[in-house]
């Protein structure tokens, strides 16, 4: 801990300087449907898509894991194959963010982090009303648990700036608002 005090003492103690408040952006008053429409368009740009419960049934023919909440919603058993073997992960989400096509997913009981991460397909089944227009609104409602915000399929552009999807995380995302 000697380093701690050395560092803190070496830092300038200049003090305050007006803290500029981040002004809240004007809140667009959009209906949930309108927001889902924007969300869908954004998600598609990113290479994901909106889907239906029928789509989910087809996808679930592959080895999968399902989190607690989606299992209840789909009338299935939570869990599934060992996580590294799952090709599909089904999870819920806390919030969808329309303006950027993002999903916020917090951890918690029955909500394994790996389900949205290690499979090649990520299916999100979530209640329709869990959507906000802007990132600012979404972050004002952050869970205090570890949370991930997912914006489209995993991707890389490291090789010649050519876009490749699904390099480590899921290359496919299907979002099903119910």
């Amino acid at each position, binding site marked *: 801990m000697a380093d701690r005090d050395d560092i803190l003492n070496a830092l300038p103690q200049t003090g305050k300087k007006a803290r500029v408040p981040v002004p809240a952006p004007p809140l667009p008053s959009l209906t949930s449907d309108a927001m889902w429409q924007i969300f869908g368009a954004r998600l598609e740009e990113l290479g994901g898509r909106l889907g239906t419960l029928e789509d989910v049934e087809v996808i679930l023919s592959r080895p999968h894991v399902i989190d607690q909440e989606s299992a209840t919603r789909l009338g299935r058993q939570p869990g599934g194959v060992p996580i590294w073997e799952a090709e599909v992960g089904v999870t819920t989400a806390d919030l969808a963010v329309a303006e950027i096509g993002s999903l916020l997913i917090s951890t918690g009981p029955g909500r394994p982090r790996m389900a949205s991460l290690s499979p090649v397909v990520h299916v999100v089944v979530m209640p329709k009303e869990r959507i906000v227009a802007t*990132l600012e609104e979404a972050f004002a409602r952050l869970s205090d648990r570890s949370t991930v915000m997912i914006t489209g399929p995993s991707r890389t552009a490291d090789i010649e700036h050519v876009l490749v999807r699904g390099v480590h995380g899921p290359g496919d995302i299907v979002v099903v608002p119910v």
Partner: protein
Amino acid sequence: MKAKPVNHPAVEAFARQLAETTRDSVRATSVKVIESRKARLVDAFPDLEATRTQASQIKDFVLANISNLLSQLEMKCRLNGVQVHWAKDAESARKIILDICKEAAPDGGTIVKAKSMATEEIHLNKHLIDVGYNVVETDLGEFVVQIDNDTPSHIVAPIIHKNRREVAKSFEREGLGPYTESPEQLAAQARKHLRERFVEAKIGISGVNFAIAESGRLVLVENEGNSRLSTTAPDTHIAIMGLEKLLPSEADLPLFLKLLAGSATGQRMTVYTHLISGPRRKDEDDGPTAVHLVILDNGRSKVLNGPYKDILKCIRCGACSYVCPVYRQVSGHAYSHVYSGPLGAVLAPALEGIEALPELAKASTLCGACEEVCPVKIPIPRMLLQLRDEAMRKGVAENPIPWTLFTFGATSGLRWRTGLKMLPMARIAKHPLKDGWTEFRELPKKEGRDFRKWWNGRS
């Protein structure tokens, strides 16, 4: 005519031996990113100028209150169950990390690493490998850098200097799969190989993009998912951050996340934004059971007390490199430091001391493109000038021209006019910059009328 052997400054010397294909790779990506950056940010922020000013002021606030904010961060992290360590220099940081590793994996084994400039800065990999750990870079670009025994040449795009054929050859050599030039298939080969490393690793090491003082949340952004895997699958997660990577509150995040994604890659948002609130809680299914945060000084407190403190507002978006005409000609390797491009040209000498890199600041046309794209408005050109001045004052850099004669002439109207008349003669005499000019250009000739003669003849 062949140029006489001259002692070129390091960046110039590097440029002279750089392969044209490397230059082409760097240039092509840089141009693409800068174009999409512009489109994206203009679209995302109706008043981009005001947004950048705002971000810049938030970072000013951070630097002005840094010791309080760090104490706050430390306290919140502890409450979250994150173990906080302080490292005053690289050696101290390496020792802290090694001690954690020895406890978490006493018998060695695999350590998965997410891309982190701070770990590059302290040369962590070599150190851990030397004591027997199998350290694996998992970001695709960093993975290529590692298997090629290379160094990253851009802070965001580590293999910007390589084309797909070079990557293909490396993968074939490493036995990752059959030779292929398809980026998709190369990525798939890397995925397969690295998956096994994620499964076996007991420790994951990452950097931190933003640490939130108010909540103790560590924010990591990435596109591939390797950073999430590195910080989720292993039991122990070690995060290392330069002490300036703070934001006061979570309300500041939306602005910074959008600016970073737009500036770095022209995206609306990075694919994964990982907000870490500590280790796995009792009621949670997975995630690391131990999370460590190493707060690294390594010269930063010194920089914060000096004229280059603004460079610590940097959020490592890499836009200044992409837009820089010099960077586009020379690639990141020319800067001979982990921090390259305009950012590195200031940060490297600021951290290491001007004596270590006295000529680096001169490798710039001072065109100002970097400051213009910088999301936090860092006045890079001004600091490059200050570095040049400091190097000169301390006598550690060479003066390209002895200015005595110029100064003598330019400090009196009479001497100036006399000097102008003598210029044709002076041109025959050897100007110190003559060879550097004529190697690539014709000497200028005075064309047309002389202004002063014309003016005098009018009245």
